């Protein structure tokens, strides 16, 4: 299980959502990489019970996720997924559009 993020081919910065130029080095050549896990930094519970979270990857990239499956707390490491109906245990769901990185080879 993993979630896709963008990686700059030049400086290896991880980016999400996808950029056009790398904000770190200015290059415009990217690849897509799979991020496996992230650490929950904050969560918020919405009025309908949905729990959203800010999840940090190693290196500092932060993603906004919905926590699915069993409960998880700030500080906890969770598997990342682009699948809203991922398997058992706590997961962090990151929605992507199917055309993400469509122009990148």
């Amino acid at each position, binding site marked *: 299980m993993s979630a896709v993020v963008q990686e700059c081919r030049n400086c290896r910065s991880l980016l999400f959502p996808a950029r056009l130029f790398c904000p770190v080095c200015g290059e415009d050549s990217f690849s897509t990489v799979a991020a496996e896990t992230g650490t929950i930094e904050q969560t918020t519970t919405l009025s309908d019970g949905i729990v959203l979270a800010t999840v940090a990857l190693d290196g500092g990239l932060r993603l*906004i996720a919905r926590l699915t499956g069993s409960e998880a707390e700030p500080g906890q490491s969770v598997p990342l997924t682009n699948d809203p109906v991922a398997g058992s245990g706590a997961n962090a769901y990151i929605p992507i559009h199917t055309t993400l990185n469509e122009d990148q080879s």
Partner: protein
Amino acid sequence: MTVSIIGTGQSPYTRHPHPGTETSQVIARAVRNALREAGLSPGDVDGFAVSSFTLNPDHAIDLAWRMGLRLTWLMQDTNGGASAGGMLQHAVRAIEAGDAKVIVLAAGDLMDGPAFSQLVASYNRATQDHLAPLPMKGPNALFAMLTTRQMEVLGLTREDYGHIAIAQREWAADNPGAVYRKALTMDEYLNAPAVATPLGRYDCVPPVTGADAIVLVADPGNSRPRAKVLTVRASYNADQQAGDGLETGLRACAQPGWEEAGIGPKDVGLACVYDDYPSMVVAQLADLGVLPADDHPADFIKRRIATRELPVNTSGGQLSAGQAGAAGGMHGLVEAARQLMGTAGARQISVRHAVVSGYGMVLYRYGACATMSVLEAAK
């Protein structure tokens, strides 16, 4: 800088617009009211700028045409909560450069239920692809998590934010244009239905339909009450969304802004900061230096804001007056100009300098646009 605001106008904020109400009508009414206050007619206007999320399929030129304006300067701004400062920045330069003599800046939206849902679902590509499908309906959840971060870093509690909301509601009691005017108690604030923990109902702005406008001219000299623009600064995408959102672009605006204004943050008698959430009031006051770095934020809120020693958002702010879409950014500018021109009615304070900030356009995790303006009363 030699440009002044000589008129302000609003279209009354309402949670329930009459069926058939159009954005263009709402904006035109604010423009009409601002021109009346300035003692001018549409024929006197040669510059116009507008910001709106719901003007489609029309643009600034359609609106100008339908208002009968003949112009030598025209712009449309798309930066929501930061649009007023952005338009002001351009307009001041346009007047200084001689491109126009009388400029009207306007912002407004028809923000009923369907318009609001549409706006928050398709705010930008990142929202459409990565936030709306979570599902997330609007920015409350993002600012809930930002508020949690700020509580941890600054040692703030929900009560501290409550004092901000309650103080603004007290100001709103004297603003007939505010949609919420009844006193708010701490109990009501703390026990309000949760929207996105830790945010409750009174941490969030009520969407309203309405519009705001101002009239700008080259400084007319000692002839009339006016609000002189001492500085306008803008910052866009200061941190590439790679930070925690607790600092806004205002941090970069502050030093050059105060320098150009010729006064410091301690000299302002009024702060109108973009209050989409109480935590953002704290963040912006801190970035501007109005909340000094060596002061304790919780103490500052109780000692200075709650007591009105430092008037903050004297219209009630968007938290009490309502957020009329893109007019949210113009709201504080209009209020500051009114206080400086002596037209604030029952909530009028005695004030010479005001700072106004704009903030907005959530790209993915928090707002990327910020503007700072400093105004001075003159007559």
